[in-house]
């Protein structure tokens, strides 16, 4: 067993510097690495390029980094659930690159899997295709998209073991598995960290080879963005 466990979030985030490109797992506020984001706020790391489907809300998720102006550029598919984001984008302080969600996921997966580029029909004929190579396959037009290059990927899983194996829960899975191994170093924070040998290998979603550092988050708030219910 190759040990991946680190004891603290500080140790996990060691080496993250100003100006780096970082992937963050999560969809909305679901399955985001809360503890790592809180620590990045404390560390005051700035000029970051963030690859993340969304940008959090004003006072949670990546919104916390936005508030402190630590983000230089966002690469996302859907943003603007927060006023500060809008203000920074319109004033030109924040650079925003919007890309189709499936393309975002596949650019992560391609980086993980060592595929430098791929063709997708998403965005053909739209401004997303501007400047990109196009090609016809089976009578349909596609555009070429490249794998992401990132310094760190920070993901959140439900359970993990000291070998870095991960298990996800519900739709908190989302982009997290796609980002494992898609950057030079992958950091996983988990709700429950167990000794290697405890998890059933049949149930492992992401093998530890794709994770370099793993730690148990101190606490999880798991905020709900849209609480929708029905009456009993």
């Amino acid at each position, binding site marked *: 067993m190759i040990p991946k466990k680190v004891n603290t979030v500080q140790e996990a985030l060691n080496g993250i510097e100003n100006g780096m490109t970082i992937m963050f797992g999560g*969809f909305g506020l679901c399955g985001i690495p809360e503890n790592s984001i809180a620590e990045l706020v404390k560390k005051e790391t700035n000029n970051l390029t963030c690859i993340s489907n969304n940008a959090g809300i004003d006072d949670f998720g990546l919104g916390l980094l936005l508030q402190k102006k630590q983000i230089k550029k966002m690469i996302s598919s859907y943003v603007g659930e927060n006023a500060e984001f809008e203000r920074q984008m319109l004033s030109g302080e924040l650079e925003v690159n919007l890309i189709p969600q499936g393309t975002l996921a596949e650019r992560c997966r391609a980086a993980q899997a060592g595929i430098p580029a791929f063709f997708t029909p998403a965005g053909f004929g739209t401004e997303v295709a501007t400047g990109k190579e196009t090609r016809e396959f089976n009578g349909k037009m596609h555009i070429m998209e490249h794998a992401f290059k990132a310094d760190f990927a920070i993901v959140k899983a439900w359970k993990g073991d000291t070998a870095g194996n991960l298990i996800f829960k519900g739709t908190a*899975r989302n982009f997290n598995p796609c980002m494992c191994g898609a950057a030079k170093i992958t950091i996983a924070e988990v709700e429950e960290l167990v000794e290697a040998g405890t998890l059933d290998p049949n149930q492992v979603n992401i093998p530890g080879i794709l994770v370099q550092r793993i730690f148990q988050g101190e606490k999880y708030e798991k905020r709900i963005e849209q609480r929708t219910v029905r009456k009993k």
Partner: protein
Amino acid sequence: MLTKEQIAKRIAQEVKDKYFVNLGIGIPTLVANFIPKGIDVEFQSENGVLGMGPFPFEGEEDADVINAGKQTITTLPGASFFDSATSFGMIRGQHVDLTILGAMEVSENGDIANWKIPGKMVKGMGGAMDLVASAENIIVAMMHVNKVGESKILKKCTLPLTGVGCVKKVVTELAVLEITPKGFKLLERAPGVSVEHIIASTEANLIIEGEIPEMVID
């Protein structure tokens, strides 16, 4: 003229047995409430769930189980969770039978614009570009005219496109339109709405053949 619920009801008639369906935000979400009895359907949400059920009962919300609109949801027997790459794999791979989404504009060659108004805050396309580029069967739920009465059913879209030549059918508060190689064909009209009213509310040309029946909505 149809209400939003009635638009959803009419679209629900297009959902066939054994369909996997992706519903967009807004009117499309309502379609789930009107699926005819005796039909087996599974709803996919692109953030990574198949077999979506209704909203949870109060107190039973799970922050880890949401839909693409970030709303808390439940799952039904046979449901599954998966990652985003797998999710868009099933969309791009055309395993999802029907996509229902909203639009700001649709043109007579099936182009759709629904993600950006230049000069206004741009929130992003989310999964819409992947969905419209890949799905074989796309139905658009939208209002026929905007707030100042201008047609959103156009010869050519004026807003930045989400996808080209992809929409198959449009259901509005006034009509059901099919997109044919020759343009919009008027299939049905809303109860009490005349063909003349629809023509006057539509910037694009309409193909009108014979008597146009009224929609049947119970």
